[in-house]
């Protein structure tokens, strides 16, 4: 982590969506460090930049390779992955190690809320309460961050 912000890698093959996501990331005070549009680009950038958080679409320029990219980013680069996809039902049960998923089509507000929430989770190591509407956490991360516990004082 650089200072008190999070470094964010965007993995999305629709450039207009990616550009808008960059605006949102900066608006909530996070630092966008790069954009990848395919599995190989994602892995290469993740290795080089070691982002704290990667926003990953399932369908990339080289096919439905986002799941594989997510697993590599999580396991090899130590980054937290958040899926952003219209294919929520087709994700593997363990979410390929990702912390959670936002379903498309999402609103700017839902993404802002989710990023602000994840920032607290990652910086404090525990959730400030249950996840906001629009964000579904994986069971592993619910336990890891105590997101099923009542609001902390």
């Amino acid at each position, binding site marked *: 982590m650089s200072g008190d912000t999070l470094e964010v890698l965007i993995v999305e093959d629709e450039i207009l969506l990616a550009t808008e996501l960059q*605006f949102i990331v900066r608006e909530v005070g996070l630092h966008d460090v790069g954009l990848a549009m395919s599995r190989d680009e994602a892995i290469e950038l993740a290795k080089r930049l070691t982002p704290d958080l990667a926003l990953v679409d399932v369908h990339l320029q080289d096919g439905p390779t986002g799941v594989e990219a997510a697993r590599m980013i999580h396991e090899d680069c130590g980054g937290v992955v958040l899926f952003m996809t219209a294919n929520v039902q087709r994700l593997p049960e363990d979410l390929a190690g990702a912390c959670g998923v936002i379903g498309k089509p999402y*609103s700017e*507000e839902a993404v802002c809320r989710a990023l602000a929430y994840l920032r607290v989770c990652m910086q404090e190591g525990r959730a400030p309460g249950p996840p906001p*509407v629009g964000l579904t956490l994986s069971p592993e991360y619910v336990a890891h961050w105590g997101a099923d516990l009542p609001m902390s004082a």
Partner: protein
Amino acid sequence: MSEIEHADAPAAEGTYARELEQALAQKTALLHEVDHRVKNNLQLIASLLQLQSRKIADEATRQTVRGILERVNAIGAVHRRLFQGGDVQRFDVSEFVRDLAGDLAAGARREDIQLKLDLEPAALPASQAAPLALVVNELIANALKHAFPGQPGLVSIIIARTPEGFDLTVQDDGVGMPPDGGRGFGLTIVQLLCQQLKAKLRIEDAAPGVRAVVSQPLERIV
């Protein structure tokens, strides 16, 4: 001869069942593909409007584009929820309202406006989901934008089941209706869509504030 006939019948049946299974699998895959494309294209439209609105200097024009974006987001929220449960024919109105109200309240950037939800479970046929979503969007957005100029307030959203279907109420305790009774584009949309939904619309003085009630009848679900 008769022996061969006996042997063939179960085999033919097995082939038929396999063909049916394959056809069903293909149809399901196709539905997923179309669903995926609809969602992605709605996201693309929303992102285009967002990017455009960031570039507009004139505040009134920007608000107009933001208004269109909100409507697209409301339709997007419908599609995010369609096909999610096991039942593709029915649409969970209460869960949708919870989802959309949260988004609109956050988007209004008004910490001084409280939102109160009291939602009994209610469902609609999926084909009526988008028009109802647009009605709900206009009513909530209208309250958030116009009811509380420079003052705090409360917006209540209530879904209550009735013998005919359900009543959806959006009520604020703000400044009340403008003297002309409100003739904006938003209200026009609400009136037209209620006509399409065969819903009764009642907008009344809540003293203080405005109460809008949409009485949605439910046809027997076939």
